């Protein structure tokens, strides 16, 4: 029974961050129709930037976000302006190709700078544990959970009740009508992409403590994000967070209850199983 609680708790905590990763992707898809296959490599970039800041300035990853979030947000804006925008409106697959290419560039760029050895970025809370009865929680996971949910709620409120948020939803629901309201659609698309990448910088720091990182890990995060987004419904806020929790729990169950490779397959097996019975995703109605 303890194992079960342990798996559930661990899965919920990490799944919340997966949900956050997927929200970034869903937002970008919602306003530009772009599925970014270099999503995971931007997470890598965020993590390695934290590593670099630790090596150079001994900064804790939780402090590094003060630098990495604005820098990655700016990178996101530039990438959208100069690489993705010229492609939007062309064939969907061209944009996919572009982001896949970007993924290789990022991966090899990181490899060039940091080398291929797995690396760790220490944090003061890294080995701290929080014991609740029989369940042992790693403090970095608890922090990730709290911040991910706080950020998700913040995003939700922003989308619901600010002009910028309403502009994002307007562009998503009908870009032509949004332009007729005087909304600068191009600007909303750039800012949303930049915001999506900025969120990744934060998520990277949340996932980092205690996790060995290597340049080739990006694709794994991209795939996890895609699973969550598809499960939750591309633009469904609540669905995506729920999808994140399910994938997180599946992963935790896989690693706790099953040995080796089969355990690592667990999220994918669960995903396929859900898709077989609910191809429309988890939630009934899309709330855009």
């Amino acid at each position, binding site marked *: 029974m303890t194992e079960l609680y342990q798996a559930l708790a661990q899965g919920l905590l990490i799944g919340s961050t997966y949900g956050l990763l997927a929200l970034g992707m869903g937002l970008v898809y919602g306003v530009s129709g772009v599925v970014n296959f270099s999503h995971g490599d931007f997470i890598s970039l965020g993590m390695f930037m934290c590593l670099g800041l630790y090596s150079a300035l001994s900064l804790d990853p939780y402090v590094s976000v003060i630098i990495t979030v604005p820098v990655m947000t700016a990178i996101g804006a530039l990438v959208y302006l100069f690489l993705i925008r010229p492609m939007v409106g062309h064939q969907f697959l061209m944009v996919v190709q572009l982001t896949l290419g970007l993924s290789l560039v990022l991966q090899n760029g990181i490899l060039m700078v940091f080398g291929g050895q797995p690396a760790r970025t220490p944090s003061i809370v890294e080995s701290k544990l929080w014991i609740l009865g029989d369940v042992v929680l790693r403090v970095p996971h608890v922090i990730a959970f709290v911040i991910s949910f706080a950020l998700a709620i913040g995003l939700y409120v922003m989308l619901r009740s600010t*002009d910028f948020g*309403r502009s994002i*939803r307007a562009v998503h*629901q009908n870009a032509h*009508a949004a*332009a*007729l*309201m005087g909304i600068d659609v191009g600007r909303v698309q750039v800012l949303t992409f930049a915001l999506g990448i900025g969120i990744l910088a934060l998520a990277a720091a949340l996932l980092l403590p205690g996790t060995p990182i290597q340049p080739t890990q990006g694709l794994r995060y991209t795939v996890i994000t895609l699973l969550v987004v598809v499960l939750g419904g591309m633009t469904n806020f609540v669905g995506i967070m729920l999808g994140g929790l399910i994938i997180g729990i599946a992963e935790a169950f896989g690693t706790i209850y099953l040995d080796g490779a089969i355990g690592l397959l667990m999220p994918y097996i669960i995903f396929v199983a859900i898709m077989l019975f609910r191809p429309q995703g988890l939630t009934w109605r899309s*709330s855009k």
Partner: protein
Amino acid sequence: MLEIEGLTAGYGGIEVLRDINVRLGDGELVGLLGANNAGKTTMINSLSGTVKPMAGRILFQGEDITRLTPRQRVERGIVQVPEGRLVFPEMSIRENLLLGGINSRARPQRRQQMEKVLELFPRLGERLAQHAGSLSGGEQQMLAIGRGLMADAKVLMLDEPSLGLSPLFVQYIFEIIDKLHADGLTILLVEQNLNLTLRHAQRCYVLERGQVAVEGGADAVRNDPRTKSAYLGL
């Protein structure tokens, strides 16, 4: 107020409009008529700036706005109520109206403006929290016009406001248009419905295959044989 001089516009290098000259006086209600594919929507989108002109220029209150972005034109008060209404379906009536007044000139007074719009359309006020997608066609048209008025329009351009509505709603919408006109708003009414438009507009232009075929007052347009041929494609 609005002058279009020698406008040629289209999509992907293909000219849809050729050498259009149209003028809207201050406070005028002008009809833009024509069959399907005559270029009415291209014309209205050229005025909104979502279609780039290939030649010619557009003057608004003396200022050349030909190169301005859609946003800059909305900020000057050139507002379009698009064909098919295009309300934001997953947003409430209230949110749709707020978005209508999102441009920098209208935003400061949009609460007061919303009160005026709801006075004009009390039916919208009764269900502010309802999603626009669940409204009837007529109610969506009210919302689309209300959303346009929220932008503090100086020229309101209505694209096929009668399209797909029941006769009762058409009558109601045209009463509203008359009321707005009586209050001094300059209106460009794009319509396929010839007789209806001729009854309400002071002057009309009839487009045929991208060019102005007929222009003048209601009677002149009604009696001009070219009007009939423009509609029948003869």
